[in-house]
């Protein structure tokens, strides 16, 4: 069985927000709703200065706090690694929003919680997620972590020492790896 994951090469991100817009189009979101966001950070003062863009979306954790806290079982972790909300079972208690360390869950006007689903309906048809295909600098790499010959598995194997998991010390075991340098 496939086990999906993603690599985000932060050093390539220029902060154009195309991934956010592509995701909003793909998922029919309103202007204020987004499944991914950029955390912009600035360090130092000019001229000794740098800034970073950190693209953040659902990390599809292997130990997902949002799934554990859900009182109705609406938040689930699929066997292929994707964390999903069964929207008919969501009562909108927002406990998962409180539990998520990445701040990537949103409450829709209809009253349920939604989030990045790795565009799983498209991935199952062999199409890649919108945030990945739209990116002009190729920040994201998506694929099957269980297949040792997939591009992402080989990338991770070659760059393991450069990859970090976001807030990994919380024992969430994210499926998204970040390349910082």
């Amino acid at each position: 069985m496939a086990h999906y994951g993603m690599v985000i090469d932060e050093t390539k991100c220029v902060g154009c927000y195309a991934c956010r817009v592509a995701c909003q189009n793909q998922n029919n979101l309103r202007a204020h709703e987004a499944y991914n966001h950029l955390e912009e950070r600035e360090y130092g003062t000019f001229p000794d200065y740098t800034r970073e863009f950190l693209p953040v979306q659902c990390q599809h954790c292997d130990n997902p706090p949002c799934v554990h806290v859900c009182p109705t079982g609406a938040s689930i972790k699929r066997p292929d690694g994707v964390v999903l909300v069964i929207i008919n079972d969501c009562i909108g208690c927002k406990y998962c929003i409180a539990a998520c360390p990445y701040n990537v869950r949103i409450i829709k006007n209809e009253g349920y919680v939604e989030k990045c689903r790795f565009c799983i309906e498209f991935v199952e048809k062999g199409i890649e997620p919108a945030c990945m295909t739209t990116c002009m600098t190729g920040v994201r790499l998506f694929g099957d972590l269980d297949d040792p010959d997939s591009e992402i598995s080989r990338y991770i194997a070659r760059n393991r020492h450069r990859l970090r998991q976001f807030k990994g010390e919380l024992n969430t075991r994210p499926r998204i790896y970040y390349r910082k340098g």
Partner: protein
Amino acid sequence: MEGTYFVFWNWLVAVYLFVAGVSAGCFAVSAIAYFIGPKVYQDISRIGAYIAPFPLLVGIACLIADLERPLIFWKLMLTLQVASVMSWGAWLLLIFSALSFIYFYLWLPERFDLVNLFKKPADHGDDVETASESFLYKLRRRNLKKLKGWIALIGLPVALMVGIYTGVLLGALVARPFWNNPMLPMLFLVSALKTGTASICLYGCFIQGFGGMSQEKMETNKFLVHSLDFVLMVLAIITIFLFIFGLYVSPRSSVGAALLIMGGPYTFAFWGLVVVLGIFIPLCLEIYELLPHFIRQAAMREHNPWISGIITIAVLIGGYFLRHVVVYGGQAAELVSL
């Protein structure tokens, strides 16, 4: 975005956490009073039993109103998610509200006995027992004393669990540094017992009044309420100290969260309303009331409605603002950072 945060749980949740604490505290104090002196502290037990079910109803209404889809809240009761504190809490509240209503019924005076409903007016004063009323008859008349004891015994741990659960609900979230503190459930439990005692005192002094109560009886009740309150105040101070200490000896994000109440936007609400108004002022008044009794073994001071009024109102306001500061502060605190 830096500097902005999203408030997903508003004051409704704070009100819920507060009133659930009041209910749990009333039941627990009532049960404890019943165990240490079923006759002597009868009034305290009775008042506690009278109050306990009703704040909880308000709380459950708040909880459902806070849901984004309140109409399908019943989905909570179709499942028990073992890993979810909220799911446990929903079942706990169901059990606790059932127990508190039974307990309430058992403490009602005899004229409210359900048996009376089934009696025809002509039967009054008649001790003949019909088949239809025999179950209720056994429940109320024959085994009343035993039943009260059993419900109090089963209900006491459930009430304590409700008091703890309101804190664990927030404390279980590793992502939120202001909440993720082992002292938070303890703080909420102590505060729950404190607000429970205060509401019993408030009801006793100002709604029921002392009509027909002998001086001695009043002193006995007053002594228990004030002593319980005094012990709880001391525990509350220790717990608050440990809570803040726990935030400071944790990673950077927790220290950042502590700054919210140590100079940040919630400083006044926390230190002014929760600590000074909710703990120190009542504690000083308790000491004023109890000191002659403790030191000179003298009789309690004359009942002064001002003192009881200030203590109870202050404790209740402080109890609410503790929940308010924790609910809003937990959301204002930055998420744990990398």
